[in-house]
């Protein structure tokens, strides 16, 4: 871990969220350290996705706070999140389907450039400089994520696994400090999940960034995470290394059901 981490990259303190009378998050707290892969698990309806949406600004949490590098994200507009240093992928991928893979990835670099409508229409020298800078990062990612051969193909026509890599590249070209992955294993087959695990580790090591992995798929989370936090009914029920969380009785009960009741699984 880098030395600067007396302050965590992301600190979540007592975040609460209600929808009508339903408590989706009842005061959740945990940290994500620098260069850490943090798993966030929990059964359906446990509040994982709600928390994810609170971090990325889709929902505005009601109590508590989310600090990124010590600064609150409570009032940061959604389009500023990329600038602050948060990159994300979406459940079931959200690519710009008719656009080429290259253009998809380049959109991720949008916030790094400043040129406006007039500068672009006139193709001023500053615009060309920005384009060249984005191109360098694009080249790097095309190789790292093995996308060079498909860079001209419309993203929507690619296999699902490849689309996931495109989405990852789009998030990474913006140089995030924290990468939020929303159920990246959903819809992948066994070998694709293995590749994904490799990829997440590779990305962390290559870019020295933190990853918050929200995932259903237990074996993936346990394999790649440095630390795991488990939620149930909007509350934290475990927090620790994968082995610790796996051994936690509350987690076993939440996932496998109470031994006294008839477990479905």
């Amino acid at each position: 871990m880098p030395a600067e981490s007396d302050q965590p990259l992301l600190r979540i303190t007592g975040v609460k969220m209600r929808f009508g009378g339903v408590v989706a998050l009842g005061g959740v707290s945990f940290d994500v350290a620098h260069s850490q892969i943090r798993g966030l698990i929990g059964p359906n309806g446990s509040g994982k996705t709600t928390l994810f949406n609170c971090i990325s600004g889709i929902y505005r949490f009601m109590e508590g706070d989310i600090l990124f590098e010590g600064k609150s994200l409570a009032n940061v507009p959604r389009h500023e999140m990329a600038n602050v240093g948060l990159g994300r992928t979406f459940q079931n991928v959200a690519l710009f389907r008719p656009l080429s893979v290259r253009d998809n990835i380049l959109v991720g670099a949008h916030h790094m450039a400043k040129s406006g409508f007039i500068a672009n229409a006139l193709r001023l020298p500053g615009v060309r400089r920005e384009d060249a800078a984005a191109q360098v990062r694009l080249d790097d990612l095309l190789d790292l994520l093995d996308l060079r051969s498909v860079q001209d193909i419309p993203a929507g026509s690619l296999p699902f696994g490849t689309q996931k890599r495109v989405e990852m590249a789009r998030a990474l070209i913006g140089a995030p400090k924290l990468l939020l992955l929303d159920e990246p294993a959903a819809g992948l087959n066994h070998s694709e999940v293995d590749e994904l695990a490799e990829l997440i580790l590779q990305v962390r090591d290559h870019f020295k960034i933190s990853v918050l992995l929200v995932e259903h798929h237990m074996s993936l989370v346990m394999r790649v995470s440095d630390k795991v936090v488990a939620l149930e009914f909007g509350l934290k029920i475990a927090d620790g290394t994968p082995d610790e969380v796996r051994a936690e009785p509350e987690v076993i009960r939440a996932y496998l059901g109470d031994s006294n009741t008839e477990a479905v699984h």
Partner: protein
Amino acid sequence: MRASWLIAILVLIAAIWPVATFSGYHLFQLTMVVVYAIAILGLAILTGINGQISLGHGAFYAIGAYTTAILMASWDVPYWVTLPVSAVVCAGVGFLVGLPALRLGGLYLALTTFALAVAIPQVLKHKAFETWTGGVQGLVIDKPEAPFDLPLTSDQWLYLFSLFVGVIMYALAVNLTQGRIGRAMRAVRDHAVAAEAMGINLAMLKTRTFAVSAMYTGVAGSLGAIAVAFVAPDSFSVFLSITFFVGLVAGGAASIGGTIIGAIFIEFVPNLADKVSKAAPGAVYGVILIVMMFLMPKGAGGFVADMWRKLVKAGGR
């Protein structure tokens, strides 16, 4: 890239050649093709590339036309000076109309802009503005003569002038839509939530795109007013907005080059339909439109692009 330059040059040569050979009336028709192409280009930037549907672009065309006519008739402003003024006015109005677009998605925006198109002829006729607009009668303006004693007729000069303005407008549009901003426009069209997460300010991008789009169609209106040398409220009915929309779809909504084909379509197909059947030109027009959509579902622009790709592939073998 090189191929597209070659095409651009060929198109330009083909565009200048009629000056020497065409009659006055045919040149005027070509001038109107250029004018409509710019108008549809404005709509293509908004609807095809940014995904905001407007059924009211005739309103911006009217505002541009009247800006030019009023400046020329009331203040004797030279015709070419009115173009930048009209661009600024229409961009401003477009920006304001774009504001409700932030709350009204898709079809509701279409209706809002449609309402604007319905309202504009009546606003132009209104007594309060009659001193400037000339009310129902409209305004007659002078047709510009060729400058520097060039041996050109008024029609020839007007065609070349429109072509010159058109080339500049297309070049700017190509730059705008192929770079960072154009990517952002398309991204917002294809997935707004993801675009926002990538750092695109949706409100800013959409309103500015609306302003640019209105500016293009407004400048087209100005050129059209100069070419026709006359403006009147009833030339800018709802039908004009629908006609632009037809041109957009016929050309291929997201295709910049297709807007030229769309303009040729809306200028010549009604005449053609009239020649086929004096009694029911509307029906012939409708049939042509349906056949065209059936044969070229991606519009003429998409069709040409596909053919080109096939040709390149065949040539590569």
